[in-house]
């Protein structure tokens, strides 16, 4: 497979493309095994554009994702939400397309398309019938360099984002609590502000903010293109050269992020909202995704909170009937994030009761080894979940792009599955002792507005 890709690169480079000259040459770097039967080919264009390609003939479609290595962590105080607002603006006018034409062309091609922004990255994806790949490449390359930012569009899109914020945060108890959790847990690192931005920042943006952000971060050398589908390699590579070859590099500024200092005492914040029952949201400072302890922490998460046979479920939902729901997640960020836990109380039950029962399980994890059966169950659940995310071409493209962007490994999804298999009971106990530490946790206590809160 690597040989066929190197030949495809040679052919694509040999193709004379009008107006391009020697620009946009492709360089084959390596091929990485992706599961049992596939390879991700890694290429780089002269201008720094990183290309990850995987042939997948399971359906006559192709998924195309563009990952920009910019997220809300790259923003500045007072300008929060800019990366996300910008994601919205990317669907607007370019020098070659009138407003609305981008979406119309994609819809006419039968495309599925969307975008997402988070702390470390922004990505755009399209999935199209395989014969429409050329259109997607042209559109994505065009908006990478030729976006037009006008006052009317920025004003309208700010309103849309403000409404998105109302929907996801201001009128959503859990969204608001999650925002407060990160704001409280991160006092120094930019992970403390929300990706969607503070409302006053969203409303204060002007076109020049957006223009400056665009010129700084949207460039081939800050992007990775992922192509997964039923395509002919050389055909795609020629199209990529033609579309992106002439785009110039940008000077990507060095990042100005402060590591979060160790948290030395527990932080508790009370949030009163019109909600039926108390909720407890806990955030322990956790590892970065690339930390070797991340996989054991994910296994711990399954043992503690994953499914109805988990320790937490049995203790809080079945045995004592204290909770309606409990969930957890070890955040998958480039820098150390949080191990998040969400507990929803039954009517009449309190935060203290929930927390006491939960803490008993944390003590057990610190003191005792988990059983082999618990390990086996957790690993099997993680294996199924990992495979489920690879069902479609879009799913595969997302996993390849995500792991490449965050940990620099396009086959990271499979590396994770291998890492899970190696986790031992001792690993689980070690990460419990390392991360599930009371002094380094933050608690958001959501209280129904009508309730009294114990001091």
């Amino acid at each position, binding site marked *: 497979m690597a040989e066929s890709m190197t030949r495809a690169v040679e052919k694509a480079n040999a193709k004379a493309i009008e107006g391009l000259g020697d620009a946009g040459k492709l360089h084959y770097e390596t091929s990485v095994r992706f599961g049992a039967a596939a390879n991700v080919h890694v290429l780089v264009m002269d201008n720094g554009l990183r290309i990850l390609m995987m042939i997948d003939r*399971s*359906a*006559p*479609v192709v998924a195309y994702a563009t990952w920009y290595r910019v997220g809300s962590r790259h923003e500045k105080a007072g300008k929060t939400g800019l990366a996300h607002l910008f994601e919205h603006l990317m669907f607007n006018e370019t020098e070659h397309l009138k407003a*609305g034409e981008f*979406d*119309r062309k994609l*819809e*006419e*091609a*039968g*495309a*599925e398309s969307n975008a997402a922004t988070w702390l470390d990255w922004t990505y755009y994806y399209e999935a*199209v*019938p395989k014969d*429409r790949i050329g259109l997607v490449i042209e559109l994505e390359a065009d908006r990478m360099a030729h976006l037009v930012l006008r006052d009317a569009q920025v*004003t*309208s899109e*700010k*309103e*849309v*984002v*403000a*409404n*998105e914020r*109302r*929907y996801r945060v*201001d*009128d*959503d*108890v859990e969204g608001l609590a999650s925002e407060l959790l990160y704001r409280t847990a991160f006092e120094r690192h930019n992970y403390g502000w929300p990706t969607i931005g503070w409302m006053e920042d969203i409303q204060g943006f002007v076109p020049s903010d957006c223009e400056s952000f665009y010129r700084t971060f949207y460039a081939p050398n800050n992007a990775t293109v992922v192509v997964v589908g039923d395509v002919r390699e050389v055909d795609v590579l020629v199209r990529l050269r033609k579309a992106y070859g002439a785009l110039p590099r940008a000077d990507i500024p060095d990042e100005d992020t402060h590591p979060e200092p160790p948290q030395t005492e527990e932080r508790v914040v009370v949030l009163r909202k*019109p*909600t*039926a*029952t108390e909720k407890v949201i806990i955030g322990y400072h956790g590892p970065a995704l690339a930390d070797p302890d991340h996989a054991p922490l994910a296994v711990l998460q399954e043992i503690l909170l*994953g*499914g109805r*046979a988990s320790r937490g479920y049995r203790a809080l*939902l*079945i045995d004592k*009937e204290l909770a*309606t*729901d409990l969930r957890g997640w070890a955040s998958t960020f480039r820098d150390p994030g949080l191990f998040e836990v969400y507990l*929803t109380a*039954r*009517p009449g039950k309190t935060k203290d009761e929930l927390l006491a029962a939960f803490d008993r399980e944390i003590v057990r994890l610190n003191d005792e080894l988990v059983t082999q*059966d618990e390990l*086996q*169950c957790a690993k*099997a*659940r993680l*294996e*199924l979940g990992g*495979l*489920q995310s*690879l*069902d*479609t*071409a879009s799913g595969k493209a997302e996993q390849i792009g995500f792991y490449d962007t965050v940990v620099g490994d396009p086959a990271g999804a499979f590396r994770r599955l291998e890492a899970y298999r190696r986790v031992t009971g001792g690993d689980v106990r070690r990460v419990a002792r390392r991360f599930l530490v009371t002094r380094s946790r933050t608690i958001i206590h959501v209280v129904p*507005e009508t309730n009294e809160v114990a001091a």
Partner: protein
Amino acid sequence: MPTDLGGGAKLFVESSHVLPVVSIVVVLRSGAAHDPPGKEGLSRATARMLRRGCVGMSAMDVERTIDRLGSEIGSEVASSSTAIAGQVLVRNLDAFVDLLARMLAEPSFDDDELGRLLRETHAELLESLDNDRALADRFFRKKLFGDHAYGRTTRGTAASVAEIDGNAVRAHHRAHYVRGNAIVAIAGDITAEKAETVARKLLSALPDLPYVESGLEDPPPLPGRHLVFVDKPERSQTQILIGSLGTSAHDLDHVPLVVANAIFGGTFTSRLTREVRGKRGWSYGASSRMGVDKKRHSFVMWTFPAQGDAAPCAALELELLDKLVTTGVTDREVRFIQKYLTRSWAFEVDTANKRVHQAVDVEVLELPSDYYSAHLANVAAVTAESASLAVRTRVDPKNLVVTVVGTAKTTLDAIKAAIPSLESTEIVPYDAEAK
């Protein structure tokens, strides 16, 4: 073509060896429409009890086995169906099938477990009050469909869940978990031969009884314009649903209406999205959809503007709907959406799971046998005239239900003023069904 499993049961299979995973769904042609009046939530409670113990296994034994096998099992109850769906790593398929077969045919229905489930359900009902979108949907359906099965809740209310007991659950299981009511769909890393063996094993212990008729009729129309305002404190935003009855999949103008709806609010460049979000920025989302079920279902627009924009947004939606009905759609719009619907079809059939579920839908929802297979040809045959006529025939702006979740003291008066010719206005506390 399905495989006849005998006694009315059928099997649909889609093999795909892309991932070492097998999906299995056992669908019963019974759903919340079969819940006795006053016991809404019974179908759902019965389905959820399947994993809370079966012969020789406690609830926790079942849970541990599900996890150990690298599998998952869930249940979903709709008006016309109950689906017990699972996925498993292919290496553990046989053990998974043994478990699922026992759960389906020999559940324990232990009274303590049922009591625990009902207490959980009650707490979940309270918790669901945090979801404004779900509240809007619930009260919209309740008003639009009234006493019809489509207007009832699959989840139940606090009062109806309190009426469910072990006898009701056991009786429901005896009547509905029968071969004649069952359809099995299997997709993934499995051959057709193995799938048939699996399906026969799954249904082997179910009683050989026939399909249970629901006696479902088309819901009656609701004349006039009706506002249901779901009052919830401290909202910065509203959830607005505006709609009416739609079509049955058997109507000759069903596909033309599907096309018209796609033009109106089915894509990101549709009229509704362009006017509400694109030009005015009033709502993060603005869309319309048509429900499809055994009988005539709904047409509904959804937006969620800030409280201050709610009234003008509702007025704009009514204006856009009026225009759609009076002037119809254009040839250009139809040609555009035909390309979209035809080319995007690739993503309706790009996985084995999606393909097998289409076959199940046809069977369970009693759709025309060529509903999916002829979809592209049917879409291609639509003209601007047929789409416009379908809208005029099926959607009448004089007969609409408007549901708004918001804070009444700040928004109600403006909303009422924005909707001319209101025949009725109800103000409902947001927690009306959870007490």
